[in-house]
């Protein structure tokens, strides 16, 4: 049947695909392509558009289709072990195996029928179902809050790192300056301290 063949082809594609996230929104397809081509042949790249979340700073996600499942697995393996940067540092990208649910335009699984039922308010089950509905709405709010918290955490970490980086950089600049303009050497002579010859 055509449906099954289509689904089988889709499943095969899923096995070959790598899911990347924590990508910077600046990153273009070309950058990703070049980055991942170091691991193997890239057949296709699809950025997952993010319609729902309007917050800034949600990292970008992409599905990268490789030539065969082995390459895809190798990528997931490698990136999980050593931090890999695309387009900036030091936040590393994350690679996972792709799942069918990540694809927007996936074909339906053959042989499955959608079943549904309307439950009227007079039905005895209505209460249960209604409660479930309310619960689901609550959960959606919780998810929102969690996401907010996560983003806040990420921002904090980034700020902390930026601060540390700046401080370190200044430190090194000072040291460098002092060496290049000879101050360090003169001081060393004055205090009779041996210094490296190449200063």
């Amino acid at each position, binding site marked *: 049947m055509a449906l099954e063949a289509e689904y089988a082809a889709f499943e095969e594609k899923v096995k070959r695909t790598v899911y990347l*996230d*924590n990508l*910077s929104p600046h990153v273009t397809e070309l950058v990703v392509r*070049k*980055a991942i081509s*170091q691991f193997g042949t890239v057949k296709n790249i699809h950025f997952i558009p*993010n*319609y*729902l979340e*309007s917050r*800034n*700073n949600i*990292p970008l996600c992409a599905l990268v289709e490789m030539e065969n499942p082995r390459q895809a697995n190798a990528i*997931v*393996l490698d990136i*999980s*072990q*050593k*931090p*890999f*940067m*695309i387009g*900036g*540092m*030091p*936040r590393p990208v994350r690679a996972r195996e792709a*799942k069918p*649910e*990540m*694809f*927007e*335009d*996936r074909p*339906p*699984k053959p042989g499955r*029928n*959608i*079943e*549904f*039922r*309307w*439950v*009227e*308010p007079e039905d*005895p*089950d209505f209460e*249960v*179902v*209604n409660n*479930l*509905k309310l619960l*689901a709405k609550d*959960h959606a709010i919780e*998810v929102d809050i969690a996401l907010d918290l*996560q983003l806040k955490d*990420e*921002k904090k*970490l980034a700020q902390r*790192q930026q601060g540390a980086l*700046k401080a370190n950089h200044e430190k090194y600049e000072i040291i460098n300056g002092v060496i290049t303009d000879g101050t360090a050497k003169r001081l060393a002579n004055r205090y009779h301290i041996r210094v490296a010859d190449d200063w």
Partner: protein
Amino acid sequence: MAGFEGRSDYSEFKWGVKIGVGKTNKDLQYYESFTFQGVRYSLYDSVYAYQTGALETDIGKIVKIYSTATEKKVRIVWFLRPGEICNFLGEYVPFWKELFLASGEGIGLYNVNPLEAIVGKCNVVCTSKDKRNPQPSKEELRMANYIFCRTFDVGRRKILENFPDNICGIKVESYFNRPKQKNLTRIPTPRTQLRDQAGPSNFLSKSQLDKMVAYPVKNGEPGSKAVPIAKELENRARPALRDQDGLSTVPSKSRLDKVVAHPVKNGEPSSKAVPLVKVIRNTVDPFLAPMSTPDTRPCKKMRTVDSGLPDIDKSGWFKPELWEERLRTADGNGRLVLLDNLDPSYASSEVQDLVWGAFNEKVEAKMIPCTPFSNPHYGKAFVIFKSSDAAESAVVALDRRCLILADGRPVIGIVCRGTMKERDKVSKFVGHLMIDKHRLQSQREEMRKAVSTSHFAQPNTVEYDMAMEWCLLQEKSDLWWKALYQDHEEKEMEITKLGEQKVKV
């Protein structure tokens, strides 16, 4: 400790045959064998060695036994497990119970350890077809704990099928199987002698070779294996880690909930580090198929949707830009409905069929792809109705009554008005740091050389440490999402159970 009392008969230690003294250092006395805790170990025996805090024993071959004035030492050449060199396996699929003999020059070939590091004998059989190797019989193969037929060159980091002439200064024949002797009584029963963790056969399970799941192994290089210093048996309860190099700890990237806080020793940081073996797929698959909630209405029949929808024009659908445009216009017109609480494995066409069956409306629908922080049990979809009235009435109907899917979940619909916000140009991605001075320069160059902007972080850089912090945060966030969704699931189960009980009553 529990097994302590039974060890008093193992306290004996005896040297075996002496075979010489050291050439330069006359204090060094070499031996051919020794008896320790009732077991006789000889040169070129394969043994298990245990390092405190490790989850598995290491396996190696004794190649030198000697004593100094104060200590007793053995030199062990290691067998590597496939999981330890998984990065260098490449295409090679290791056998069940296969090990790799270390060879070449470099860290991880051998270590000198105190005798007490040895915890038992191991039966490792060489199945190589090398002419110098006596071929094992079927019986021996069956009795073997492990086999090896290849070596791993630690210097070149490659798997070699041909055995070099000597390894660690010892002729390679010593590593092969012993020539056949009349009395083959040397095959030990390792179980009774292993004191520490469950024998490796529990660990070298199929999952390790098949899926590389949960192989939390010693991080850093395979060399520098520190070993418990057991000062006689009274202190056995307190084996202390001995830092061979005393180097700083490197934050490991292993599972957070299995982080055993034992300091990890790295070799010299300038040498090429063996990449950290990370547990892959450590999070329980968040995208497991949803558990079917118990059917609370066994006798009510469900309507099935026939998927023979009247023809719908499929041509322009999956072009992303067109779809996005349509989404936004629909959003503006009030025709866009967000359906929540769907089965995440639905396909877009199935959603359409569903709406057709339930509301008798022809619509366009698309499932929203799941993200690492979206609920793995619920799926969402965007549905564009033909008119805003249709959208409204559908949502009202969903509110007043309940539309249930096959496993009892109610569908929730929300009309989206203005929820699609413009994607702002993000000026800075959180987490990508810049040094002000270089900022201008790098922006120009980056655009030109795309490859240079992607790289692996090297362990001896500041960048690496920072990257590790990010990885930690990522892992943590994974865990808390998982916990959150698990919590949600439990609450749902509670409610459904309550409902069931009511029905029964």
